[in-house]
């Protein structure tokens, strides 16, 4: 597999923390455990449904945290005016994609909670672009809006779930069958098809999406996306924004903009987020929230690998022990890593070999 990220994980995390701090986001540190009921009541908000649980000493059912956002919202007051701005870098525990095992995954992300306005959305969108650009310059941010898709679904009197699934899969052939079965009007069929196909570079896709607008909700969502795109063009991120209304999130939690970040060469999205005011209502809080998370677990195998584990490998025998120790000391003082060994270690990569014995033992 080709290496595509020329930094290591710690470098990226350090750079991201500096970026978030420079925008006034405070570091938020969480405990490892959370009451299981928080996840049980909001299962549909989680990426995976399985959670590691255990009973604590007081008999409460606890969970190893599978998600950060729920905890951030639960444990913080939502300001009536202004925004609380947090970033985090935490471990989460969830089922890894394509396996039946739990995995510890590093996740970093940003949350803005309170009176969310378009400036906050634009700032978060720009932060996402900066975040993705730390991984690779070849990235795309897929943007959608729940107001647009929910507004579209409002016009149909048939099952929302089926429409949502067909939109997510871009499965127009199955939609035509569905339309025929449900006697849908040409106007509705056309609006759905335009919504599926209005994807790609934002400037063009937004123009195309206008042809699908059927009500005020869709129109308001599209206008918000257009204003966002104007701002992103000003920030220089305009050509990185893709519109894709097939990114549909759970409408019980999300109500506005939706984000999915992709990096060339990585098969799944590496970042996701959006506006989730409805999650706050579910947790009996008033106000809005917008945020995103970068899934480092998705990118860990693409980090640059350091082939040479040590700069210098010194092989010694019984007569050259002191010489080896002396040379090793000098090497370390010169700022290089060193390993001394009596025989050639297997599977150790090194930049330079110093052989202090006549016959190297294999």
């Amino acid at each position, binding site marked *: 597999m080709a290496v595509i990220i020329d930094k290591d994980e710690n470098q990226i995390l350090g750079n991201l923390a500096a970026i978030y701090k420079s925008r006034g986001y405070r570091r938020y540190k969480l405990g490892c455990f959370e009451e299981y009921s928080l996840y049980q009541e909001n299962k549909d908000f989680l990426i995976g449904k399985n959670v590691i649980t255990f009973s604590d000493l007081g008999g409460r059912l606890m969970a190893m945290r599978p998600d950060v956002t729920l905890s951030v919202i639960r444990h913080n007051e939502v300001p009536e005016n202004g925004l609380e701005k947090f970033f985090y870098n935490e471990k989460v525990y969830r089922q890894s994609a*394509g396996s039946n095992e739990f995995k510890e995954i590093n996740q970093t992300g940003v949350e803005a909670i309170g009176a969310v306005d378009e400036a906050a959305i634009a700032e978060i969108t720009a932060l996402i672009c900066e975040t993705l650009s730390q991984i690779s310059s*070849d990235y*795309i941010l*897929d943007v959608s809006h729940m107001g647009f898709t929910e507004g579209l679904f409002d016009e149909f009197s048939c099952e929302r779930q089926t429409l949502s699934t067909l939109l997510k*899969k*871009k*499965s127009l*052939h*199955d939609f035509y069958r569905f339309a025929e079965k449900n006697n849908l009007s040409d106007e509705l069929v056309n609006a759905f098809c335009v919504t599926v196909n209005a*994807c*790609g570079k934002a400037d063009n896709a937004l123009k195309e999406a206008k042809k699908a607008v059927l009500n005020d909700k869709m129109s308001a969502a599209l206008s918000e996306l257009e204003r966002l795109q104007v701002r992103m063009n000003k920030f220089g991120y305009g050509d990185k924004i*893709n519109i*894709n209304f*097939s990114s549909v999130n759970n409408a019980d939690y999300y109500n506005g903009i939706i984000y999915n970040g*992709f*990096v*060339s*060469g*990585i*098969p*799944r*999205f590496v970042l996701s987020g959006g506006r989730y005011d409805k999650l706050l209502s579910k947790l009996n809080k008033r106000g809005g929230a917008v945020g995103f998370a970068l899934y480092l677990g998705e990118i860990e195998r693409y980090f640059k690998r350091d082939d040479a584990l040590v700069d210098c490998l010194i092989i010694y025998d019984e007569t050259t022990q002191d010489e080896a120790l002396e040379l090793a000391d000098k090497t370390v003082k010169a700022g290089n890593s060193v390993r001394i060994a009596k025989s050639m270690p297997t599977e150790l990569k090194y930049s330079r070999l110093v052989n202090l014995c006549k016959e190297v033992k294999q």
Partner: protein
Amino acid sequence: MINVALPKGRLGEKVYELLAEAGYKCEEYTKDSRKLIFCDERGEVSYFWVKPSDVAVYVELGAADVGVVGKDVLDEYEPDVYELADLGMGKCAMCVAAKSDWTDDTSVPLRVATKFTNTAEKYFADMGRDVEIIKLNGSIELAPVLGISDVIVDIVETGTTLKENNLRVFKRISEISARFIANKSSYKFKTDEIKKITEKLIKAVEK
């Protein structure tokens, strides 16, 4: 370059022929070759030949940008991919079948033999029917004949195998055909190429 995962066998060969006609020909491809990867000289397309049930895995994991897979596989494994076209080939149906004289005894859980455990579980859960799923990997028709299951959930093309074993279809769960799928990330970075190959393939199928 577009990487295409094709299912080994008649369906894959037919799709390759359609793509070749549509301009995605690979000079080094021959039917009898045992090679698994073919690239065209212009470097526009490469083909992988994989087990039909694995096509979705190759596409979901990004080894292939697009691929051709049966709807039965998509329903069973639910890969996170775009489903861009119904090729209308390899048509068959996912069915519930049983011995011709079978009647459902609703006082006990229904024993269901199948290769498609998720599909079967979902179907009977929607009906609210209590079931015991028996996972088999082949010769599913044998299960009710030998009495290890009451019904089977399986793909039925012509119904000849069922008939010869004194079984019949009791319910068609869904219609199956070959679908053209795309990796979600590839679709962002190769949008125009994937849209172009999809359109050309649809046109070739409609001819």
